[in-house]
């Protein structure tokens, strides 16, 4: 990953001078970066930094106000349909149809991506096998655990054989076993299919272990980018967490005010009636 001004043939994602505003608030402020094919790229930042807005723009859910986004060489704004065939997404919140079975969810996805009927059964069987969820295929999604739902979402995102996958906090709320299993799957996919992975997460230990490159966004601007070791040394930290905290501030302004003023807040509270 590198900050870039021009698209290169080896770039899977190219973001150039992108701006997104909500009313007067600039959520994403003139960001530029690129991700090479086959990389695991971690997009980090504190809550409200602009990560989700960026992902929404990359996945065609929101148009950028300014700038150009290209995925696999195609302009996201102008070739949205073609771009959508290239990527899979696992959103932060579960987007499975809770009232349908695992198999029906996968079948619907095939329908959305116009996968020929003759191929569907085979592809569904493959991803079910890959994520070890074949025995759950007839279960209504609502009845699955959080970890299983995540695996189904990952399986679904790969059904149309994308070259890029977006993972928005994929391990949020999962127990350590499920997290490990998920990363093992992703690692396997990266190795076997040269899949490009764009992920956001707050688990920085996972990023250190699995990501090739990192970008840190804060208040809509990218404040550091490069390999994991580059970002750590740039921020003069021991770990990525040190670097992240040093780059984005130990605590958000609001939290700092709260902790700094805790005594005063307690002092200011009305005394209880005796």
């Amino acid at each position, binding site marked *: 990953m590198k900050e870039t001004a021009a698209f290169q043939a080896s770039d899977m994602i190219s973001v150039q001078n992108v701006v997104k505003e909500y009313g007067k608030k600039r959520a994403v402020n003139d960001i530029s970066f690129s991700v090479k094919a086959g990389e695991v790229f971690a997009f980090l930042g504190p809550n409200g930094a602009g990560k989700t807005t960026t992902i929404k723009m990359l996945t065609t859910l929101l148009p950028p106000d300014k700038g150009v986004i290209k995925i696999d060489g195609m302009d996201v704004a102008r070739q949205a349909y073609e771009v959508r*065939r290239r990527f899979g997404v696992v959103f932060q919140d579960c987007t499975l149809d809770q009232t349908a079975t695992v198999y029906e969810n996968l079948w619907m*996805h095939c329908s959305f991506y116009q996968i020929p009927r003759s191929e569907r059964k085979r592809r569904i069987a493959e991803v079910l096998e890959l994520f070890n969820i074949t025995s759950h295929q007839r279960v209504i999604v609502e009845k699955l655990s959080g970890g299983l739902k995540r695996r189904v979402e990952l399986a679904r995102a790969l059904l149309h054989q994308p070259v890029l996958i977006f993972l928005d906090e994929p391990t949020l709320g999962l127990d350590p076993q499920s997290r490990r299993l998920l990363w093992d799957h992703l690692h396997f996919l990266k190795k076997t299919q040269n899949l490009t992975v764009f992920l956001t997460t707050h688990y920085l230990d996972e990023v250190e272990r699995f990501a090739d490159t990192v970008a840190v966004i804060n208040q809509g601007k990218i404040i550091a980018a490069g390999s994991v070791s580059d970002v750590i040394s740039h921020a003069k930290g021991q770990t990525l967490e040190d670097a992240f905290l040093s780059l984005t501030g130990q605590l958000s302004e609001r939290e700092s005010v709260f902790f700094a003023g805790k005594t005063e807040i307690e002092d200011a509270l009305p005394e209880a009636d005796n």
Partner: protein
Amino acid sequence: MDLIYCLWRRQVMAYLRAPGRVFSALAQPFLFLVALGLGFSPIYQQAGRGDYFAFLVPGVLGSCILFNTVFAGNDLLWDRQFGFIKETMVAPASRTCILFGRALGVTTVALIQAVLVGVVCSVAGLHKVPAGGVLIAFGFAVLIAIFFSFIGSILGSILKDTQSFGQIVNFVATPLFYLSGAVFPLEGQKLLVVTLTSLNPLSYGIDGMRGALGGQYYYDPLMSVFILIVVNIVAAFAATFAFSRVRPD
């Protein structure tokens, strides 16, 4: 077509998998039948108008379709708030097909409910159904079901809050029901009531069903069909436009 079928099936399967929903959706039509039917039947007979239940059943079928379809807009709002809509929006799929699949699913569910109510009314002897009229009545039912499915989709696309959805939809649907000729005949009504009823597409559907099921048509049935086709086309365009502007929350 495959996508439309898939989303149609999703709506129907969700309905069939929730028996509670089937029974609760049947409760309101039977409440109308019992409360209004028993309450107004003697007055209706005294006025020399005949069997009030026979008059009321098409109105109750119309109410069943109206409330089932319009309230199904809440499913869309729910999908927007709880994720599934994102899956459809990042897919290289036509928004129009997604909308039509949903709307046809909602239409089918409402028609199943209406048929169940109709069968129960028929078995209970509340309404003698002429065999030839059933298909015509069903045709009118289909037209109003599609129309109000689109209206539900519009509401589900533009409203933002599931909490207030019910209140707002009640505010829209309840006057539509009472000003549709569902519960009282239009003959002898004041001009204001007749005018408002004539502006309501549900009136033409209920009147068409009533005429086909052995009652009297108030409006020319061909004109009713024409009006319902026109409002369906307008509603389809409006729903397509509203749904094209949906963004995930």
